[in-house]
């Protein structure tokens, strides 16, 4: 079957999609946590830059951010396509994940913080030992949603010629005039990955609910 051969051809591109997504998620999680904590800080010199970052990133399209980082930063630092995509996706997801973490942190009952204080814990200790573990658990559903968005958003990296699924589908399509077939192959890969991602998220959620604690 010819179609199976094409599926095989698309495997490296699917791998690239996964890499861009993983980089976006990992960088995004790190940035998200840092900016969520900054945003919640009582110090303006921390909260204002975080607010600015979130405002800037959520207020502009990802495609623009990608192009800006790849072409716009040439004067400062020349980045290849793939690192540009990693960074753009990371910065983009960071803003959304920061808001997810912020909401989850704020949703933890304030009695928890007071209990920590009354034990003589410092603010940082309370955050690390008491608030964050509870907040991270609550973040799992919105995070898994964000991860699926990140997976699909990685297709925009095709605009700067990162050899991921959508770029390959379009290249094969224009070479053979059978674009629909190749889009369908890409779609199957995307659906497989989003389905697996969702299943993993559900599993984690279930596991935490059963073996850990209920609220």
């Amino acid at each position: 079957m010819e179609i199976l051969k094409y599926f095989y051809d698309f495997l490296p591109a699917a791998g690239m999609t996964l890499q861009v997504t993983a980089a976006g998620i990992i960088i995004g999680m790190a940035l998200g946590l840092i900016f969520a904590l900054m945003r919640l800080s009582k110090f303006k010199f921390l909260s204002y830059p975080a607010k600015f970052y979130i405002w800037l990133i959520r207020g502009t399209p990802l495609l623009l951010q990608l192009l800006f980082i790849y072409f716009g930063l040439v004067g400062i630092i020349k980045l290849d396509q793939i690192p540009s995509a990693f960074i753009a996706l990371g910065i983009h997801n960071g803003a959304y994940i920061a808001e997810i973490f912020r909401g989850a942190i704020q949703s933890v009952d304030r009695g928890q913080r007071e209990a920590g204080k009354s034990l003589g814990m410092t603010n940082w200790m309370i955050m690390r030992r008491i608030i964050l573990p509870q907040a991270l658990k609550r973040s799992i559903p919105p995070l898994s949603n964000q991860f699926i968005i990140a997976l699909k958003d990685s297709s925009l990296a095709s605009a700067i010629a990162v050899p991921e699924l959508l770029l390959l589908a379009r290249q094969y399509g224009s070479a053979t005039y059978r674009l629909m077939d190749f889009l369908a192959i890409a779609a199957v890969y995307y659906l497989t990955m989003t389905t697996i991602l969702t299943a993993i998220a559900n599993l984690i959620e279930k596991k935490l609910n059963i073996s850990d604690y209920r609220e």
Partner: protein
Amino acid sequence: MIKVSKLNKWYGKHHVLKDINMTVDAGEVVVIIGASGSGKSTLVRCINFLEKAQKGTITIDGQVISHKSKKLHLIRREVGMVFQHFNLFPHMTVMGNVIEGLVYVKGMPKEEAIEEGKRLLEKVGMADKADVYPSMISGGQKQRVAIARALAMNPKIMLFDEPTSALDPELVGDVLAVMQQLANDGMTMVVITHEMGFAREVADRVIYMDEGRIIEEGTPEEIYNNPKNERTKEFLSKIL
């Protein structure tokens, strides 16, 4: 042990504590009563610096403490607090809750902390639940764990803010029994409660608060049998 003088606290324009003067001696048990909104919780929370008073001083062990102090977390280690809604850490087991302060605040090795935790859970009658999560135990059991958690820090004084008012009536007794035992062991305690039986039996002194002021204080007999102030009489007639 604790001396509160001329303490004043505002929430915005709302004057919640008005010139509060109060002392608690070592080993003493002081019960605070008063209508809802009279400022009982606020006063107790100020003693633990969970709230900041704008005027007045709080002296703990001869040391005047300003709420501007950078070392408030060190002072809070000396003052245990038990909350109306327990505020146990839901992501830690009962034992985890009790040893959290020992391990992460005091830096005690974990094995040693667990030994101490067992002793404390024994004391509050919760040793058999050491490995379960707070969501699996009753309110009364939660509150006894919360007491053990506070005791673990070996505080000089324990503050209780309506520790039994969120509990089903049949669970109140166990918690009060633990508190009574603590008092018998010589713990200095400030307790907001309307449990008159407990106050009569355990309290050395009862303080009546009304609209942010201490209006009357005395022994349980004086307050409950012979209140001098009209407002105290009125309040007591309502809760009796």
